[in-house]
């Protein structure tokens, strides 16, 4: 899921990253590990509008039993969850900080993600900022850029293939789940292909 309107960047290809950058910031094992342990995701820039990409992503994560924590300067509640004005206002542990804001703002969020002891700093599809990656990396966080957390979840739990998308996942092993139950807390580390 993109965030083209929020993200002031040129997106003309599958990815904004070079092959070397992809190997670091889009490594399949890093993505899978992150999806496997993430139980809380703070979403910076989560929209209040039901047809925005961030709202799709949040709805999806919530249905997978992941706690979503909206970060928004004005809203009160989004998707039934209490909203915090900044990352630093969140009183509970955050596993993943997921960004839906323009690339140039990302260094600020990276510093805040370090301050709140998040584990992974994840920039959505269409977003890339090396300075932010350096800040988050120096603070001990793993960094993922220019990928959609919903698409990646759908790629590895197998549901994205219901829509004919090329998941790139290829294995002769039997799947661990027949279908994804939408409201149970699925242990992704078990069911990832």
């Amino acid at each position, binding site marked *: 899921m993109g965030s083209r309107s929020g993200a002031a960047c040129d997106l003309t290809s599958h990815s904004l990253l070079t092959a070397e950058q992809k190997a670091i910031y889009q490594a399949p094992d890093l993505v899978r590990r992150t999806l496997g342990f993430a139980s809380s995701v703070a979403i910076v820039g989560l929209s209040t509008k039901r047809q925005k*990409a961030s709202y799709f992503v949040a709805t999806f994560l919530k249905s997978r039993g992941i706690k979503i924590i909206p970060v928004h300067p004005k809203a009160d509640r989004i998707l039934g969850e209490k909203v915090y004005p900044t990352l630093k206002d969140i009183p509970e542990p955050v596993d993943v900080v997921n960004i839906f804001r323009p690339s140039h703002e990302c260094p600020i969020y990276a510093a805040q993600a370090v301050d709140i002891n998040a584990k992974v700093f994840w920039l959505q599809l269409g977003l890339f900022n090396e300075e932010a990656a350096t800040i988050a990396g120096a603070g001990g966080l793993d960094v993922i850029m220019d990928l959609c957390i919903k698409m990646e979840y759908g790629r590895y739990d197998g549901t994205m293939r219901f829509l004919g998308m090329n998941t790139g996942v290829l294995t002769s092993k039997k799947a661990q789940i027949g279908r994804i139950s*939408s*409201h149970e807390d699925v242990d992704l580390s078990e069911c990832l292909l």
Partner: protein
Amino acid sequence: MSKPDQKRDFGFETRMLHAGHVPDAVTGSRAVPIYQTTSYVFDSPQYAAELFDLKQYGNIYTRINNPTTAAFEERIASLEEGAGAVATSSGMAAQLVTMMTLLEPGDEVVASQHLYGGTRTQFVHTFRKLGVTAHFVDPDDFDAWEAAINSKTRALYAETIGNPQGSVVDISRLAALAESNNCPLIIDNTFATPYLCQPLNHGAHISLHSATKFVGGHGNSIGGVIIESGRFDYSHYPTIANPSPSYHNLRFYDTFGLHGFLMKARVETVRDTGSCLSPFNAFLLIQGLETLSIRMDRHVKNAMAIARYLEDDPNVEYVAYPGLESSPYHELALRYCPRGPGAVFSFGLRGADPRGAGRRFIEALNLFSHLANVGDARSLVIHPASTTHQQLSDEELVASGIDPGMIRLSIGLETEEDLLWDLDQALRAI
């Protein structure tokens, strides 16, 4: 040794057999099962609501998606290295769905004039009813392409290997021209197949197929498929970027990014036109894909041998096969189809009465089947002047790019010597 966790770039044949299908958790079924069902029970009312809102990836109704069809879609998308695919009821439907997804009344398309006749008819007559105008240009003439493009142009369109001329189109050059005009380049890759050419890797944005032909490969199923690269920037492309009134003002590119076009094609155009592929046909087309490279190597080998044989025959005026050094398209064929430019080509019969010679030639054949199709495992033949184009005078025929003695062959997988024997005895009989 790479770690098992590390992503490996699997080869074409491996993807032909495995991409798009993981043995399911309950039965472990190794072959792709045929999900012969119209609909799917929802997990819960809330899940159903999210599914209809496209916030979940899941099965809704077979007119929109189906697990067997999805396996076919992902497999062919993997073979052409696209972001995904949408299967359709036929090749004609693949074209129509692509255009109806991209275009609005008043828009224009610039297309190669070397197109399958049915495609040309669709573009001229059916598109006119939709308010869309198609302009046709000589595919080799880049000045003509440029001259035909104007502010209303929304797509460029060509076939990898056009017939009957056997013309190979310069895909990367055309893609650059398309991109500089904010248009996607659409390539009909039917005759080349995903094995012989991958248009998206040469810069095309959309590749489509009549899967009826070599993809299925056995002449038993009508089907089509659209594959998209995910690399076109639709942010200034009205139909994909703007809020869609037919999906609650959803902005497909903003919301789905690289999947924007494909999502719109599926949940709006295929939904509304009803042009879905049946799961049973999807299953048969998957069977075709599983042997695609092996079949195509043999199709090409037989085609090459026959083209060379015909070129040396005194009754033959010309052979329009880009695999031959004599073809003006040989260089382009080597660049875009290095393993061979397919197995469909035309040749011309000589003589005072070429139309009659064509008829006698067809009558004398024993192995080639006389019918209106290409891309079967069996060898096929047609003589346009006595069948599809019989009402036209010799002059009218030539004007539409077909001469009275023109024969089109689709070379199958039979024993090479048997095919040569059949052609030889028929050529002696005219």
